[in-house]
């Protein structure tokens, strides 16, 4: 054996020092790993008597840059001694963050909530009872448009609401020779068929049924049930086999079989759906009014309008309109609940709520607030009319494991659309799967 590598020979004498030296080096490195990091401002205690509220939400990134911070600055100016630290994350992971935070006892004082999460957070003991906070401060809740309650106590207050009306591409309607925006299911089916031209890659309707974000079940499927005054619940139990759900499901299956739904439905998400509409490949979609500005921004030439979701033929009752909220709640283990409530009070005040709903392009959670776009913008005006004429419905709000319920339904519904099972099987199985959670 001949060793070609022997550069280091001369320095190999310090055998006794080597090991201790190595250990020191190691400790130095490991500790440098831990100390290089400046301990990031541990919720700066600030001046004496001042409180810093952590507010975790996904709203700040959704709003124009700096807009939400400006609103918080306003709050801080009105409430000397309270500072707000915004902790912003992506919407899709906010729920995990809250669950983990609550489990580790580091949950933010104030948290942004989706109605679909409330039930489970309350079960986890993560949310403070807002009814008690209101009672302590003698708050008059008559201006609140809604409160999300469980067992008679409020845990979430919707700050702003996004309704889900029907969006219609007017250019495509013209090209297909349809004059009136459909108001009934049969008109909608006829329009969708007329709009569909698979050869030029155009479809009447778009239906996102992704299992990753199964909220298509809430927004794009159950909307049809709610629009005609139907319900998927009895008092407090699921009731998926009732005629209203049946007829909506059957109706959608009819559209699917007629080939008027854009391809790719089974893995499509809300964010994909709207891009199909923006690109003029689908004539109609049910979608959040939060998309109005985005559609305009991305395709300024697109002519579109907003209408109520079509109802069963012959239905004359009040229409239901699906909505989703940016809700707010307080951490059960927050030491600053009184201050946290002040922040909620501020956000729900007539003025701040008007401002927030204006920048978010949403409808206010305070019944006295009016966002300024309602008067100035024709489309939002139209949406506001739809909003006022309808009763807001979202039966998923406050249900246990609401997102899982949507997913369970989506799985059975996909099988039904696919032709792999009958309507009865789909609804019975979904009903059974839901019952397991009640």
């Amino acid at each position, binding site marked *: 054996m001949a060793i070609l590598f022997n550069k280091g020979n001369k320095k190999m004498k310090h055998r006794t020092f080597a090991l201790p030296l190595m250990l020191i080096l190691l400790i130095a490195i490991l500790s440098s790993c831990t100390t290089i990091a400046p301990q990031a401002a541990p919720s700066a205690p600030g001046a004496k008597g001042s409180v810093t509220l952590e507010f975790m939400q996904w709203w700040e990134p959704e709003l124009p840059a700096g807009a939400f911070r400006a609103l918080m600055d306003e709050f801080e100016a009105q409430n000397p001694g309270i500072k707000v630290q915004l902790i912003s994350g992506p919407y899709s992971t906010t729920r995990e963050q809250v669950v983990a935070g609550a489990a580790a006892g580091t949950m933010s004082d104030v948290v942004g909530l989706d109605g679909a999460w409330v039930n489970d957070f309350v079960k986890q003991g993560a949310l403070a009872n807002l009814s008690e906070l209101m009672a302590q401060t003698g708050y008059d809740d008559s201006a609140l448009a809604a409160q999300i309650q469980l067992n008679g106590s409020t845990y979430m207050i919707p700050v702003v609401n996004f309704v889900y009306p029907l969006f219609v591409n007017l250019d495509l309607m013209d090209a297909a020779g349809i004059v009136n925006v459909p108001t009934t299911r049969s008109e909608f089916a006829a329009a969708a068929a007329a709009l569909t031209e698979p050869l030029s890659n155009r479809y009447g309707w778009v239906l996102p049924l992704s299992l990753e974000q199964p909220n298509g079940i809430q927004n794009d499927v159950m909307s049809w049930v709610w629009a005609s005054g139907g319900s998927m619940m009895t008092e407090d139990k699921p009731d998926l086999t009732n005629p209203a759900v049946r007829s909506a499901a059957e109706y959608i299956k009819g559209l699917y079989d007629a080939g008027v739904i854009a391809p*790719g439905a089974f893995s499509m998400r809300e964010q994909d759906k709207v891009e199909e509409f923006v690109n003029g490949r689908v004539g109609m979609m049910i979608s959040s009014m939060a998309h109005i500005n985005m559609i305009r921004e991305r395709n300024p030439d697109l002519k579109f309008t907003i209408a109520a979701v079509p109802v069963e033929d012959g239905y004359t009752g009040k229409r239901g309109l699906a909505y989703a909220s940016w809700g707010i709640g307080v951490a059960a283990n927050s030491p600053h609940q009184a201050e946290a409530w002040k922040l909620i009070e501020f956000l729900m005040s007539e003025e701040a709520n008007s401002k927030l709903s204006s920048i978010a392009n949403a409808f206010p959670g305070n019944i006295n607030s009016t966002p300024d776009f309602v008067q100035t913008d024709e489309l939002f005006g139209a949406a506001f009319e739809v909003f006022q004429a309808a009763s807001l419905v979202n039966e998923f709000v406050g249900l246990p494991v609401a997102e*899982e319920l949507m997913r369970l339904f989506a*799985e059975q519904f996909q099988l039904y659309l696919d032709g792999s099972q009958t309507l009865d099987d789909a609804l019975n199985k979904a009903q059974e799967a839901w019952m397991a959670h009640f």
Partner: protein
Amino acid sequence: MSKIFRKSTPLIYLSPTILLLTILSLIPIVMVFIYSFMDNVVMNQNPKFVGMTNYVKIVTNSVFLQAFSNTMYFTVMSVVFHLILGLTFALLLNARALPPFLKAIFRTIYILPWVFTAAVIAILWRLMLNPNGVINYLLITFEIIERPVEWLSSRQLALHAVTFINIWAGYPFYMVSLLAGLQGISEELYEAGTIDGANQRQLFWYITLPQLKPIIISLAMLDFIWTMHQFTLIWMTTGGGPIRATEMLSTLTYKLAFSSYQFSHASATAFLILALSAFVAIFYVRQQKAADE
């Protein structure tokens, strides 16, 4: 002093590893292990010990079986193709016929899939595999297919599509490691082989592969374990759908934990995954033992 000192030397070398892994890995794992025997932890403030109930519930669930078989397909296919592609590219890039600067360029191109975060890979492939995406467009233009294919939304295709994406995303890891391994094979072995009259194929089978074997085994084992809990890629492309075509143990675990809030069930699933991986680990350790002797 030297005897005791010598005896403790390996442990001194291992001490930082042991310290770090005990605190940051073993403790949480033991916690999860305890969770898996409790009655719904996290959601339940005073969980009770319920024995094997959670495991029984998971294993008897029909979804689990489907997730298991999907995971096996996904994992085995990924590992096999990662190895084939990684080895092929490594050998190509090691070919003497290529000038060094070309090698450098190709190496950089070939590791491209590796430098992106899984979320972006998922988004990118969703865009490309969209019915109106570029892949359908190209396939239609070259008249390979007639109508756009719903790669990710079709029950028949989704699992293959997701596996394909994962193969794309993962082979550079093999390529880089095998490339390094190839440099370690002695020139003389090949020379001796050539003198003995071996052709290229024989050189590959009798010299290159056996020499790379230890690295390949380590890579394949690690890849097997990692691919088993590949989550982001699947979650952000199909969410386990359509229906349950791409449901994996990892997506099932996630749904149990954060969608159904059944943390105990999720923990039990996690330990079933651990048990599966343990088989592979045992195989690996045996291999090491054989190499030691």
